[in-house]
């Protein structure tokens, strides 16, 4: 019996609302008082990736124009419905929109040679190759296969790994497996910054 319905709210039609039927409808009722600009924002729910609390966020973005163009985020606020953070954000979370739009964001791999004060840009391919080569070199030289008592330990103590906090459980376990399989002991995440 309780049926959801849509209602017609527009100037057209003679007596389709109480105002018009009572003869008190003004032509201007549905018109804006002056020329307003109608703005549209896309509304999305997300989580803050900057620590392990994962506070709830509401994010608002604007289409920069064109059908497939990217949405630019212009406002982020705490999600009051989130059962843990309940709408609150820490200073880092409250500044999220500035991180997202920061001109200083790292957008590609860069490399600074020992002793140099200049960063040079690398392709992702070059970066991966270089990281893999250096990791292998260091691991081949420093992997501790057995401890003093002769027990196999396979520890690699000379390299550590700082991982992202913006990860699902699944990417978390994949990262853990990757690092531990290499024998790495020092692993941390930026969630603790």
């Amino acid at each position, binding site marked *: *019996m*309780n*049926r*959801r*319905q*849509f*209602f*017609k*709210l*527009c*100037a057209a*039609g003679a*007596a*389709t*609302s*109480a*105002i*018009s*039927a*009572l*003869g*008190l*409808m*003004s*032509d*201007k*009722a*549905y*018109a*804006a*008082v002056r020329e*307003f*600009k*109608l*703005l*549209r*924002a*896309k*509304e*999305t*729910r997300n989580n803050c990736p900057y620590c392990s609390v994962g506070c709830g966020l*509401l994010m*608002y973005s*604007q289409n920069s124009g064109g059908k497939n163009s990217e949405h630019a985020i*212009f*406002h982020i*606020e*705490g*999600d*009051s*419905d989130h*059962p*843990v953070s*309940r*709408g609150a954000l820490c200073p880092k979370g409250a500044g999220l929109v500035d991180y997202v739009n920061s001109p200083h964001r790292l957008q590609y791999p860069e490399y600074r040679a020992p002793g140099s004060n200049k960063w040079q840009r690398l392709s992702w391919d070059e970066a991966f190759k270089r990281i893999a080569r250096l990791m292998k070199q260091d691991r081949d030289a420093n992997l501790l296969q057995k401890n003093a008592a002769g027990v196999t330990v396979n520890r690699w103590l000379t390299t550590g790994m700082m991982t992202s906090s913006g990860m699902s459980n699944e990417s978390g376990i994949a990262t853990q497996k990757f690092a531990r399989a290499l024998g790495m002991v020092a692993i941390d995440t930026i969630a603790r910054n």
Partner: protein
Amino acid sequence: MTFASEIPLSLGDKSPLALKPLLAAKPQDIYRHRAERLETLAEGSPLADYLKLCRSLVATQLKLAEAQEFGPAPELDMTQPMPLSLQYTADNHYWLVQLQSLLSDMLPLVPAAVAGVIRELMALTPEQQAAYGNSLRQGHLSDVPAQYSLFLWAALSAYWAHWAPMVISRMDIAAVKQTALCPVCGSHPVASVIREEPREGLRYLHCSLCETQWHYVRAQCTNCDDAKQLSLWAFDDHQANIRIETCDHCHGYTKMLFVAKDPRMEVVADDLASLGLDSQLSDKGYSATTLNPLLLAHES
């Protein structure tokens, strides 16, 4: 230092920040606020005459609420969801008493043309008035002559708003689910209200009939539950106090009133005074999923 075990998650939560699924109305406070706001908004409005008529109507509802003559409490089946919905209360005609006193109180306050309408409505048989009332509650607004609907709804609303808080106090709050229609009486909402309490930023839908507010998660369509294709529209300023949330899944919309940003706003009055925004979104192909008791636009 906060321990995880101290973070309240359940409905038994005693924290002042705990989410309350239902907020019972205080009808007298609502009518006072609404009448005051209608008076303010009437100044310089293209709808000034109508808003003044509505102000008198709300002041008359306030008189009814103060008089407290609502007859015997309705008999209800509290085991059902929406215990006050039409399904269980279609035979309850005590509200016709409210209608008669509302109409006779309004008669001296209105222009001649409107007084004629009130006299016609008073002359109808109680059966006809009751049948019109039930059609309105069912959402069949086009079955009722549009000039009567404003007064019929005002009397219905004064009656059910009186009983709703009593019903809420007896409802199992833990069993209340997030719904598109009022969990107490099954009516459409007026609009979304973004409140400061119990915690800032929570969205409540305000019932067009019993004035109850019920919680509904933000950034989710209040009509079809979709959460993927929502937009917020506003005039000139993305952070405006009045915005509209549209859904590209069901093509419905709800107005969003950020009363936390301006506590002078009142849901029914400000929704009515911002029809300019509705008309822009109608032009873009969206339909209202909400019902304003002072507008009562026909269903589509």
